[in-house]
């Protein structure tokens, strides 16, 4: 039934994600069921530059936005030619954090589509989207859970009590985990993106070869990775003949040690039922293996989203958008990009459109 309230009726959202180097669109029902999800990666466009080039990303999003949205609608069996009709109940898009020029492409297109169909537009926080990855794949996930959100730009520990109800327990004080992977990979000449490259090479290395420092920051659930990165660089400069795979494996082991230990200590403190991994670094095979092993040893349930759900996608934006629309309401037509948006729960002043300074 069309036009019914979101609270009562099955609700279908179109979601768009363009915060970095993936152009993505998805159709999601009731924030839980992925009807279609299309991701077009620009990885190849950026690889030769060793990082995401903002102007190239923005140009590619502009080129890809229509094909990707059209494909997501078609896969969901929705005719994009919905003249006078409402194929979806709302349109959601990532408004931040991310590259401002890239975000603006998705936001401008999404607001136009919502306006054309006469449905609400919902501004979604990209980080909040990542929190829903596990729920999308495991709708019966027992809560509360502690989510370790690790990516190229973020390292966060979040307690999630219910959809739309969560609290940030810890965050990085300097480099994000994924950023440390990128920087060390670049230094070791392993290519871009750094996470998968280090993961691959480490499989052939000795993780115990070198005891790189672990910053546990006693008494805090925060992280710090810049000292580790510096230690790796210093060690390799002093010992140029060391085996690269041993360095990579030892570095990865140090990162994983800290991530896993902090996540478990957060889970203990939060009396969580389980832990979830989220974000691009959650695809790291060593992190997945160690998190599973350690958490199960302490009786916590573990949920590891598929690799496709760890990396950026629009399905998670559709889930976050559904709950934001339900709990906070629609966003204005004047919504813009919020490149520095932080993570704070809905309804507590952290709604997209406002910069979170916490």
């Amino acid at each position: 039934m069309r036009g019914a309230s979101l609270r009562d009726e099955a609700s279908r959202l179109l979601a768009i994600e363009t915060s970095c180097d993936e152009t993505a669109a998805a159709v999601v029902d009731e924030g839980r069921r992925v009807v279609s999800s299309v991701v077009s990666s620009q990885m190849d466009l950026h690889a030769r530059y060793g990082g995401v080039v903002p102007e190239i990303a923005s140009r590619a999003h502009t080129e890809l936005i229509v094909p990707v949205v059209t494909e997501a609608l078609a896969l969901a069996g929705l005719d994009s030619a919905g003249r006078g009709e409402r194929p979806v109940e709302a349109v959601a898009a990532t408004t931040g954090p991310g590259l401002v020029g890239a975000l603006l492409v998705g936001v401008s297109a999404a607001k136009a589509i919502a306006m054309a169909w006469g449905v609400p537009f919902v501004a979604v926080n990209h980080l909040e989207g990542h929190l829903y990855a596990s729920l999308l794949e495991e709708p019966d996930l027992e809560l509360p859970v502690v989510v370790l959100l690790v990516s190229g730009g973020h390292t966060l520990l979040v307690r999630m009590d219910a959809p739309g109800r969560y609290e940030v327990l810890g965050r990085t004080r300097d480099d994000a985990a994924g950023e440390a992977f990128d920087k060390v990979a670049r230094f070791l000449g392993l290519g871009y993106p750094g996470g998968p490259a280090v993961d691959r090479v480490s499989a052939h290395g000795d993780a115990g070869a070198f005891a790189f420092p672990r910053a546990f920051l006693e008494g805090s659930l925060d992280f710090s990775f810049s000292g580790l990165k510096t230690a790796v660089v210093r060690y390799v400069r002093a010992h140029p003949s060391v085996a690269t795979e041993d360095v990579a494996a030892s570095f990865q082991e140090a990162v994983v040690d800290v991530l896993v230990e902090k996540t478990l200590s957060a889970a203990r403190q939060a009396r969580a039922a389980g832990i979830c991994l989220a974000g691009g670094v959650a695809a790291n095979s060593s992190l997945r293996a160690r998190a599973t092993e350690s958490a199960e040893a302490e009786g916590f349930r573990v949920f590891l989203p598929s690799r496709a759900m760890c990396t950026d996608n629009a399905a998670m934006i559709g889930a976050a958008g559904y709950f934001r629309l339900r709990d906070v309401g629609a966003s204005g037509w004047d919504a813009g990009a919020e490149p520095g948006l932080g993570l704070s729960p809905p309804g507590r002043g952290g709604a997209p459109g406002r910069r979170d300074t916490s």
Partner: protein
Amino acid sequence: MNVLALETATSSVGAALARDGDAVSSETVTSRREHAELLHPLVAEVLRREGLSLSEVGAVAVDVGPGLFTGIRVGVAAAKGFALALSVPAVAVTSLEAIEAAVRAKSKDLDGALVVPVVDLRRGDVAWSLPNGSGRRSLSWGPPETLVAEIARVARPGAAVLLAGEGALRYSGALTGGAGRSWRLANEDMAAPSVASVAMLAVAALERGDVVTPSELVPCYLREADVRINWSTRHDETAGEGG
């Protein structure tokens, strides 16, 4: 047919409606706020004023540049979204065409002057269009000195030249300073490619059948992407990370 026109390629942002090809209603704002924050409310406002709903719009036109890269993309992405969701054709108008049309519409007597629209591309460059001898115009870009040389090559000696647009205003000294030239600057109110011009040019384009699909709508950047990565600021820029 009702045509919705969007303008975001320069520092001003506008939306216009051409109703059945004649009366044009437009809203324009010049503000430091992001183009994306301004554009959609202007569309809602112009529709409200005209008492039209988007379902009554038969085509979506947009200024595809040249101009500000981010601004162009806001307009083009919005036009793609509108055209896709409404299943209507899109029309691409360049900023230079729009400025030239605005000058011709607003000037009582051009007296055979060569009209040269000039857009500011930042970083010392401007974009312009000049007659190419075949009755049409060609788009070029470069520093103002190159434009001066190009005009001198194209214009008859002593001919009147009327420069218009933000680029002409910004580099007025370099463009009109030459001795013995009768080169003038158009009024400031003609500096921006008016969204009403975009709408009228779109009506003409529709009559010619000059339409594209939403995916065929492409920005006119002229200048290649700057691929330098500023590693010192990369952390802030990519706060959204790579997946």
